[in-house]
C-alpha cells in the first residue's frame, strides 16, 4: 500500500511529486506513456503568464500569480532556463484602449505587479515588428518564457532523487474505492494507495468520474503551433498577444522561446478525441493569418516544425485542485489548461497542503531541492570545457549539428535519473534533433548511442515508445 499514487507525469503531477517529496511519504507516479512530459505538458506556448487574463477570484488567477512568483527561485534550484521577457497585449483601435484598461485593472485585482499601458510610440520602440495597426498595448513585465520540457523534467528528476518512484508505460484502467484506500487496476496489475492524485491532463475527467458522482467534463482543445528557426528568434522580444477583437476574434501569440526560436500559436479547436494531436492545413493557415495580425513580416518560410497540443478545458472553465467531495483521499488536478505551466509549482504546493492535512506526514530531512540539469558545455569557459573533454572525450563529439549537442550531453541525458529512453526523450533533455534539420543528421547517431547505453538492439530504439520504432529490420531481410 502506497501513501500516494499520482496519475500522470506531466507538469502538474511532477510538481505535486516534487512538493510531496519534502515529506516522508511513499509516493508512486504512474504514467501511461514512456516518459515524463508526453501529453498536454509537452506542447504549449512555453510561456510564464503574468496573470492578468484569468477571472479575478478564480483558482486560475490565484495559482497563476503564485506560480509566476515562484518561478525565479524554482528555476534556480532546478537549473532551468527562465527569462522574464515581458508580455504585450496589443489592440488595434482607440476604442479598445478601454478594454486594455479593464484588463489592466483585472490584473491589478489578481495581484499582478508592474502592469501599464504603452502607447504607439513607446510600443514601436519596444517591438520593432509589432503591427503598424497597433495603437496601444498592455505591458506586463512579469511575463516570461520557459522550456516546458525542462520544467517538467527538472521537477520529475528532483522528485525521483528525493525518493519518489516512477513507472512508465503503465495505463490506469479502473479505480476502485476501498475502505480508506484506492485500488488502481492498471496495465501492470493492481496498485493500492491511501491517496490518489489525479493529474491526468485531458483524461482527468475520466478518472474523476470513476470515483465521484459529481461528474466533470473535459474537452480537449487543440492548439496548433509553428516553431521558427533560431535565425529569426529575435523577431520579437516580448511575448506578443492580441486583444480579442470583433474583427479578428481571439488572436494568437508570437513569442521568442527561451532557447532562441520564434513560436507562433495556438489555434483553438474543440475536439472529441483525447489523442488527436494532428495538425490540419486549415488550422495552420488560420494560424499564419492570425499571427500576422499582431506582428508584421513574420518570416513564415523559416518554420522548422508545426505541432499541436491539447488543452484540458473543463466545462466550468477553471482549475479544479481539491479533494473530491464524495471521494475522500482522491485529489483532483483537473482542467489544467493555460496557464497550467505557470501555475504548476503553485498546484504542487496546494496539493501538498491538502495531503498534509490528511496524512500529517513528517518532514523528509534528506530532501535536497537542488538539481543539476544536463551539463551544457556552451556555458563553460574554454579551459573548463577542455578539462571536461579531457576527462570525458564524448563531450568533444558533436552529434547534433543544428543545436551543437555533444555525445557527452546525450549520454548524460540517458544516464540521469528518469533518463531518456527514446529519441524524443533525448530531444527534450538536450535539444538534439530540435533544430532546423529536425533530427535528419543526428537520428542514426542517436539510435546508435541509445542502443549502446540501454543495451538494446537498434531495432528496439523508438522515437517515442510504443510502436514508434525507427528501424524495422536489416537490409535484405525481406528479400
Amino acid at each position, binding site marked *: 500500500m502506497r501513501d500516494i499514487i499520482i496519475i500522470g507525469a506531466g507538469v502538474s503531477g511532477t510538481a505535486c511529486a516534487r512538493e510531496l517529496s519534502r515529506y516522508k511519504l511513499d509516493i508512486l507516479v504512474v504514467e501511461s506513456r514512456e516518459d515524463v512530459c508526453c501529453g498536454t505538458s509537452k506542447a504549449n506556448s512555453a510561456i510564464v503568464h503574468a496573470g492578468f487574463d484569468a477571472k479575478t477570484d478564480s483558482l486560475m488567477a490565484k495559482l497563476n500569480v503564485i506560480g509566476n512568483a515562484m518561478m525565479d527561485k524554482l528555476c534556480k534550484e532546478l537549473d532551468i532556463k527562465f527569462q522574464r521577457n515581458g508580455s504585450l497585449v496589443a489592440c488595434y483601435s482607440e476604442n479598445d484602449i478601454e478594454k486594455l484598461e479593464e484588463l489592466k485593472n483585472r490584473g491589478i485585482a489578481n495581484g499582478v505587479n508592474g502592469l501599464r499601458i504603452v502607447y504607439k510610440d513607446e510600443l514601436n520602440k519596444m517591438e520593432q515588428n509589432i503591427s503598424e495597426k497597433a495603437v496601444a498595448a498592455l505591458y506586463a513585465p512579469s511575463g516570461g518564457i520557459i522550456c516546458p520540457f525542462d520544467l517538467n523534467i527538472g521537477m520529475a528528476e528532483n522528485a525521483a532523487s528525493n525518493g519518489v518512484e516512477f513507472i512508465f508505460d503503465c495505463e490506469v484502467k479502473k479505480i476502485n474505492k476501498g475502505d480508506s484506500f484506492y485500488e488502481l487496476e492498471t496495465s501492470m496489475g493492481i496498485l493500492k494507495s491511501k491517496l490518489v492524485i489525479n493529474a491526468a491532463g485531458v483524461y482527468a475527467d475520466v478518472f474523476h468520474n470513476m470515483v465521484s458522482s459529481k461528474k466533470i467534463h473535459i474537452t480537449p482543445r487543440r492548439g496548433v503551433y509553428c516553431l521558427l528557426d533560431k535565425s529569426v528568434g529575435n523577431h520579437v522580444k516580448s511575448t506578443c498577444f492580441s486583444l480579442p477583437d470583433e474583427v479578428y476574434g481571439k488572436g494568437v501569440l508570437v513569442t521568442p522561446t527561451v532557447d532562441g526560436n520564434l513560436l507562433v500559436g495556438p489555434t483553438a479547436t474543440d475536439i472529441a478525441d483525447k489523442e488527436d494531436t494532428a495538425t490540419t492545413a486549415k488550422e495552420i493557415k488560420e494560424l499564419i493569418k492570425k499571427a500576422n495580425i499582431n506582428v508584421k513580416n513574420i518570416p513564415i518560410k523559416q518554420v522548422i516544425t508545426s505541432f499541436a497540443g491539447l488543452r484540458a478545458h473543463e466545462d466550468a472553465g477553471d482549475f479544479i485542485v481539491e479533494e473530491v467531495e464524495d471521494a475522500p483521499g482522491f485529489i483532483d488536478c483537473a482542467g489544467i489548461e493555460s496557464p497550467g505551466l505557470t501555475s504548476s509549482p503553485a498546484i504542487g504546493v496546494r496539493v501538498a497542503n491538502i495531503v498534509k492535512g490528511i496524512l500529517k506526514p513528517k518532514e523528509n530531512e534528506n530532501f535536497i531541492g537542488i538539481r543539476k540539469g544536463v551539463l551544457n558545455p556552451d556555458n563553460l569557459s574554454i579551459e573548463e570545457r577542455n578539462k571536461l573533454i579531457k576527462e570525458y572525450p564524448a563531450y568533444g563529439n558533436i552529434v547534433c549539428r543544428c543545436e551543437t549537442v555533444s555525445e557527452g550531453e546525450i549520454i548524460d541525458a540517458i544516464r540521469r535519473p528518469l533518463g531518456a529512453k527514446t529519441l524524443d526523450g533525448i530531444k527534450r533533455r538536450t535539444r538534439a534533433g530540435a533544430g532546423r534539420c529536425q533530427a535528419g543528421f543526428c537520428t542514426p547517431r542517436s539510435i546508435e548511442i541509445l542502443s549502446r547505453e540501454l543495451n538494446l538492439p537498434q531495432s528496439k530504439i523508438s522515437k517515442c515508445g510504443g510502436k514508434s520504432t525507427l528501424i524495422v529490420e536489416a*537490409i*535484405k*531481410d525481406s*528479400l
Partner: protein
Amino acid sequence: MEVKTLTCIRCPMGCLMSVHVENNKVVSVSGNTCKRGDTYAKKEVTDPVRTVTSTIKVSGGDIAQVSCKTSTDVKKDRVMDVMRALKGVKTTAPVSIGDVLIKDVAGTGVDIIATKDIRKINRK
C-alpha cells in the same frame, strides 16, 4: 510486330520513343530527336542491362558495411536475383576496392566487387 514505348535517358529532353520490334530485332525507332536516342532504344529494347550496387556486412573493420557492385552490367531481369544472392553474405576486413566478394553471382557470370576500402581494426 510489337511496339514498345520508352523514355530516352541520354539527355534531359526525355524523348518518348516508340520502338517497333520484330523477332527481337528493332525495325524502327520513332519519337527520338537525335541519333543517341536511336542507339539507346535499340540496346534498351533488345538487351537491357544494369549495374547493381549494394552493401554487405564486414566484420573486424573500421566500418560495418562494405559497398559493392557488379563488376560489369548484368541483364536487367537478373537484378533481383543478384540482390537475393547477396543476402546473408559477410566478409572480413581488410577489404580493398576491387576485391572480389562473390564470384559469378547468381550464375550471371559477373562478380561482385568491393567499391570501398575497409581497414582492419583491433576492437577492444
